[in-house]
C-alpha cells in the first residue's frame, strides 16, 4: 500500500488532480487566512493601537511578554485549567459513555440529554452557573450539604475559580460522550467473551480490551480538547469578566485569551495582543506535536496503518 511516490507522468497527473480538489481551501487560505495571519505576525512587531497605524518596535512586544507578570500568570492559569479539564472531561465522558453502553435502547434519550448543553448559548450558561455554583446559596453546595460536605465558595474563592471553570466546561462534553459510546459499541464481543473464559476480571478487561480498542477515539478527543482548553475564552469571560462582574475579577481566573482580549480591545494594545497570540500558537503547536508523537506510539489501530 505504501508505495513511494515516484515522479512520472502518472504522478504528475495525480498531483494536478489533487490540487484541483484542494484548490478551494488554498484560495480561501490565501485570500482570507494567510494574509491576516501574516498581518497579525507583522503587527506583533508594532505598537498598533487599532486607532493609529502601527509603528515598528522590533522585539519590544515580545520583551514585554517576558516582563509582564500577568502574561505568565494567565498562561499558568490556562495550563492549570487545561490540566484539570482535559483528564477530568475525558474520564467523566468515558464514564458516562460506559454507563450508557449498558443501557441499550434508552441510550438515544440520554444522548440527546447530554448533547443539549452544547446547544445552550454560552452567555445563558454562564449566568446560570454563577447561580448554581454560588458558595452560599447555590444548588451545588446545597446538594453537597446533604452529604455533610461544606462546599467552598466556588465563584469567589480564588483557589476554586479554575475548578469552577472546569465544572462549567464539563457540562459540554456531550459530543465526546457520544463518540466514546460509539467506540465502545464497536468493540467486538468476542474479545470480552474470550477474556471472561480466561477468567479476567472487569478491571483487567477494561485495561486490556476496552482501552486499547477505543484508543483512537481517545486520541482524537484529547487532542481537540487540549487545543480548545488552551484557547478557552467564553466561559471565563461570561462568568468573571463581563461588564457586570469585571470589577471583582481575581487574577486567579485570568486565562490567557481573556488577557489577550483585554489588551486588544480595552487597553488598545493590539500589537502586544498579536504577540501574545503568536506565542500561544507556538505553544499549542508544540503540545500537539508531542501528543501526536505519543499517540502514534500508544494508539492501537485495528486495520493496517499505511503511512
Amino acid at each position, binding site marked *: 500500500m505504501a508505495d513511494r*511516490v515516484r515522479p512520472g507522468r502518472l504522478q504528475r497527473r*495525480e*498531483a494536478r*488532480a*489533487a490540487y484541483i*480538489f*484542494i484548490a*478551494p*481551501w488554498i*484560495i*480561501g*487560505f490565501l485570500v*482570507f487566512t494567510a*494574509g*491576516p*495571519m501574516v*498581518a497579525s505576525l507583522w503587527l506583533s512587531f508594532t505598537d498598533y493601537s487599532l486607532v493609529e497605524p502601527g509603528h515598528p518596535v522590533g522585539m519590544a512586544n515580545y520583551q514585554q511578554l517576558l516582563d509582564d507578570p500577568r502574561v505568565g500568570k494567565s498562561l499558568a492559569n490556562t495550563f492549570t485549567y487545561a490540566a484539570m479539564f482535559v483528564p477530568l472531561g475525558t474520564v467523566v465522558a468515558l464514564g*458516562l459513555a460506559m454507563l*450508557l*453502553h449498558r443501557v441499550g435502547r434508552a441510550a*438515544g434519550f440520554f*444522548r*440527546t*440529554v*447530554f448533547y*443539549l448543553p452544547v*446547544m*445552550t*448559548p454560552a452567555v*445563558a450558561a454562564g449566568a446560570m452557573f454563577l447561580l*448554581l455554583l454560588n458558595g452560599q446559596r447555590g444548588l451545588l453546595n446545597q446538594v453537597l450539604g446533604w452529604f455533610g460536605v461544606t462546599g467552598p465558595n466556588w465563584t469567589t474563592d480564588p483557589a476554586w475559580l479554575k475548578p469552577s471553570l472546569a465544572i462549567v466546561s464539563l457540562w459540554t462534553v456531550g*459530543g465526546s460522550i*457520544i*463518540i466514546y*459510546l*460509539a*467506540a465502545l*459499541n*464497536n468493540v*467486538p*464481543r468476542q474479545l470480552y467473551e474470550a477474556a471472561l473464559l480466561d477468567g479476567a476480571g472487569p478491571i483487567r478487561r477494561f485495561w486490556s480490551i476496552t482501552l486499547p480498542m477505543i484508543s483512537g477515539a481517545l486520541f482524537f478527543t484529547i487532542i481537540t480538547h487540549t*487545543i480548545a482548553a488552551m*484557547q478557552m475564552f467564553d466561559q471565563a469571560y461570561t462568568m468573571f469578566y463581563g461588564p457586570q462582574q469585571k470589577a471583582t475579577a481575581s487574577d486567579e481566573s485570568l486565562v490567557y485569551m481573556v488577557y*489577550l482580549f483585554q489588551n486588544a480591545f480595552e487597553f488598545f494594545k*493590539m500589537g502586544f*495582543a498579536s504577540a501574545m*497570540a*503568536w506565542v*500561544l*500558537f507556538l505553544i499549542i*503547536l508544540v503540545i*500537539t*506535536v508531542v501528543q*501526536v508523537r505519543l499517540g*502514534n506510539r500508544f494508539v492501537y*489501530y485495528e*486495520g*493496517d*496503518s*499505511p503511512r
Partner: protein
Amino acid sequence: MSVETRPLPPSTEPPADPDLAARPLPTSGPARDRRRLGPGAVLRWLLLLVATIAFTYPLIWLVSASLKPKSQVFDNRLVPETFQWSNFVQVWDAGPVLRWLFNSGVVSLMAAVAVTFSSAFVAFGFAYFRFRLRGPLFGLVLATMMLPGAVTMIPVYLIWHQLGLIDTQVPLWANNLFGSAFYIFLMRQFFLGIPRELFEAARIDGCSHLGLFRRIALPLCRPALIIVFIFELQASWSDLLKPLIYLQTEEYFTMPRGLKQIVDGFALSGEYHWEIAMAATLVATLPMIVVFAFCQRYFLEGLATTARQG
C-alpha cells in the same frame, strides 16, 4: 508532526453498507450483562439519573425563568409561582423576531451547506491522492486552527470592507465556501477509512476523479456529511461575533444579534426586564434544539460510524 496520520481503519464489518453502519454491532451490550448485574443496574440508573438532572437543569431553569414575571425570575423556584406567557408576546413585539429567525435560518443553512461540500471536496484531495506536498499542506491546514481568531479578525474585516460587503450577510457564511480546517480533518479521516480497492476498481472501469468523489466517497460517508452539517448549523446559528461586527441594519440581523438588542434594551438599562431576556434567549435557542431532535437519528448514528473507524 507526522501528518501522514494513519487513516482511521475500517471496522471489522465493511462500512459499504450504510444500513449496517446505522446499527451498532451487538457487542458487550445489555443482553449479556443484565442477568449478571442486577444491583449494579440500579446503581447505573441512579448515576444516569443524577447526570441527566445535572445536564438538563440549566436548560429547565431557563425555560422556567422565561415564564416568570419580572419579580420572580431569580427566586430559586423551578416551577414558576405565576405563569406569565405574555413574556413571549413581548419578545415578539420587541423587534422583528420572525425576520431574525428567518435570517439565522438562511445564513446557517448556507454556511452549513457550503462548508459541508467544500470541506468534503478538499478532504478528498488530501485523503485519496498521493503527492509530494500532501504532508506539509495538511499540516498547514491544521495549523490554521491554532492561531486565536481575535487577532486575525480585523484584517479579515478589512478584506470584506475592500470588497464592499460590510453590512451584508455575506461575510457570515462566504468563508465556508473554501472549507474549514476542523471539518476537513474530520472528513479526511473518514475518507481514509474507505478501502482503496473500491476506488481502484472504479478507476479501472474508467471513472474520473470527480466520479470517485461523487459516486463512492460521498455516499459511503453520508453520516459524516450530516455530522459536519449539523455541527456547522449549530455553530453558525449561535454565532454572535460575526453579526455584531459586520451587520449594522436591523433587518439583516441574525437571532443572536437580535437577542443582544433585546437584552440590552430591556434588561440592562431602564427597566431591567430579565424575564423578557430569558424568554428571548429561549426563543433564540429552541429552533436549534428542535432541529437536533429531529436529525438526531442520522446525526448520532453518523457520529457512531465516525468513531467506529477510530
